[in-house]
């Protein structure tokens, strides 16, 4: 029984483990999952042998545990650092009484890195990792929600608490009422969720522009992710294949003089909650960019938007009708360098869902 780096021939076993015990699905893993995992762990442009993905083998050589590692190059005040993101930790139930999970975690933590993080831990993982000296960073755990069809959103939220059959029944039965109520609400002048067309112009955000935006708007922050065109292209391409979250929309927002004042990237699916990956731009334009995003999501049929807010922009998000919670996946971090943790804790990192493992979730 031992921990070793994952090799390509482990992928079928890893896919089964992930499918059965991480996603808790019956039957064999769908054929698309294996190439997805293969691409994620063997072809990603951030690959660094210092941050390996690990498997745990039982005495018969069977893979009974897995921990995916993704390296992300970042900078702190211009100095390069290696950030290790750990995710998709899964252990076969038969091996859970043993030491599979602790050994996988300990081996991962022994790897060379400046900072180790996860940005989508559940409550159990958070509790385990906090015992391993990880810290929950409050400034990076503020999730926002903004209804764009408030009545639909209410029914959507309620239906999520039920089983799929009941949920589908409720959604279907409530649809005509919700459509009417949201349509009426959308016209009332006093409605805080009324949609108004933004005076700014939106256009498809290409990767060169995104790269320029990332470089320009990280000014004023101490920590930021490092991308080049190739890595950004791979990342966005990978995310676009993540259909379960919806269609990935990337929009650059320009003012009357065609100057880019901001941008946003989000997954949208009609009738569901849209997941926002990144919002950026001039601080002064935050409210205008949000207004553009809300209108865009409303036009696309989303019921609400959800994302993680940069604490520095929290006031502007609040002004635009967003509510905040800490529910939606925990960001926790560990580093031997207290100054790096301090940067994160004071909200001085230019980080979004684009820059961690949330964006790389293989999904269902």
């Amino acid at each position, binding site marked *: 029984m031992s921990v070793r780096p994952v090799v390509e021939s482990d992928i079928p076993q890893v896919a089964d483990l992930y499918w059965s015990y991480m996603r808790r699905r019956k039957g064999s893993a769908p054929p698309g999952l294996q190439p997805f995992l293969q691409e994620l762990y063997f072809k990603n442009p951030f690959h660094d042998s210092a941050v390996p993905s690990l498997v745990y083998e039982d005495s018969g050589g069977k893979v009974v545990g897995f921990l995916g590692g993704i390296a992300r190059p970042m900078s702190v005040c211009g100095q390069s650092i290696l950030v290790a993101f750990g995710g998709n930790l899964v252990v076969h139930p038969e091996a859970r009484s043993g030491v599979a999970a602790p050994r996988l975690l300990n081996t991962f933590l022994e790897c060379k890195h400046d900072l180790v993080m996860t940005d989508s831990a559940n409550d159990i993982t958070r509790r385990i990792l906090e015992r391993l000296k990880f810290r929950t960073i*409050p*400034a990076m*755990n*503020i999730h926002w929600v903004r209804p764009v069809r408030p009545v639909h959103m209410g029914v959507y939220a309620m239906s999520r608490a039920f089983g799929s059959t009941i949920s589908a029944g409720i959604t279907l039965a409530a649809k005509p009422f919700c459509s009417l109520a949201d349509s009426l609400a959308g016209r009332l002048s006093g409605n805080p969720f009324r949609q108004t067309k933004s005076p700014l112009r939106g256009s498809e955000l290409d990767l060169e522009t995104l790269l320029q935006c990332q470089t320009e708007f990280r000014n004023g922050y101490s920590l930021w992710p490092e991308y080049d065109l190739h890595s950004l292209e791979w990342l966005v391409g990978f995310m676009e294949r993540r259909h379960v979250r919806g269609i990935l929309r990337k929009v650059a927002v320009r003012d009357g003089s065609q100057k880019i004042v901001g941008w946003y990237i989000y997954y949208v699916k009609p009738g569901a909650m849209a997941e926002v990956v990144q919002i950026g731009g001039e601080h002064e334009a935050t409210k205008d960019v949000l207004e553009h995003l809300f209108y865009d999501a409303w036009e696309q049929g989303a019921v609400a938007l959800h994302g993680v807010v940069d604490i520095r922009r929290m006031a502007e998000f609040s002004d635009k009708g967003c*509510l*905040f919670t*800490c529910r939606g996946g925990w960001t926790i971090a560990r580093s031997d360098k207290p100054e790096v943790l301090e940067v994160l*804790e004071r909200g001085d990192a230019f980080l979004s869902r684009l820059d961690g493992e949330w964006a790389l979730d293989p999904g269902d």
Partner: protein
Amino acid sequence: MSVRPLVESDLIQVTDLYWRFMRQKEGPAPAALRSFLHDLYFTNPWIDGASSSLVYEGTAGKIVGFLGVIPRKMSVCGQPIRVAFGGNFVAHPEGRSHLAGPRLLGAYMNGPYDAWQTDSANDLSRKLLEPLGFRTIPGLNIHWGRPLRPSHYGVYSISRAMGSAASSSLRIVAKPFCAVADSMAARLSFSPFRQTEPKLRGEELDVETLLQCLEESRKGYSLWPEYDAQSLEWLLRFMARVTSRGVLRKVVVRDDSKKIVGWYIYYMQRGSVGEVVQIGGEPRFTRDILSHLFYDAWAQGVVALHGVVEMRQMPLFSDSGCFFTCRGGWTVTRCRQPELLAILERGGAVLSRLDGEWCLDPGD
């Protein structure tokens, strides 16, 4: 036309100014308001000699502007500092064209203080103060809400946006439905609004105990307010007189061995939202203290609670079913020394609504 310190004989004019142009009420100011303002600006335990509050005299000595200033004693790493809380800033329409506002603010900012702060600025005041070097610190502006009777809270929130006649009709019509729905919400085992008898024991919090608790709670922080028994007693007595917010409840929470694990102070008003002044205690008991508070407020007939949360406690509040906004009064600060601002920005201050001017609002 000049700015000068407030003297007792100004109070008649200041009260009228406050009543008509701050509260925008008709008719003469109630007699109790003058006595309230007198106590606030002439008997508060933080004044040294002359009042720190300022008036602006128009032609013929008529007072056309007022800015209430309460200097609060605080410590930065054990070194005493004075923080001037400005509030109840009001100018007669006649005085507005004579620069009453800018001159009062100018005199306030020239005062012998280490920092200038307000913790209940509206959007307009915030916009006015930011160009004068005041900063909106995100970590000090996170308001939390926790529905206890969700249906009643929903109706309460909607009715606040309506006129008083429509508002009371809506409440009367909705009351029976809300009572049934909320009763179920409090009893159903899977309801996030379920109320259960708390494990911890609560009893009346006296001044000496609160003083001890405050001293204990400042460990690990760099900035804290300084109190003695006399100042705390004055403050709590003053706050208890603000009946427009409800009854001031002060509860100390103990474990089975009678050891104090926390405390809370809040305004309780049956059928309305309870405003939480302060919650403190051992961090590992935060959830239990919150449960105790929620049960106490629910048992008193409160529909929801609102308060301000320190950023590092957000995950625990979120775990207890709270949501967050930035609406509810802005905290904006200007510091003489950048080090002081850095402490506030990194969340190194233990400050609550007890420690500013929010708790000194004379109300209607």
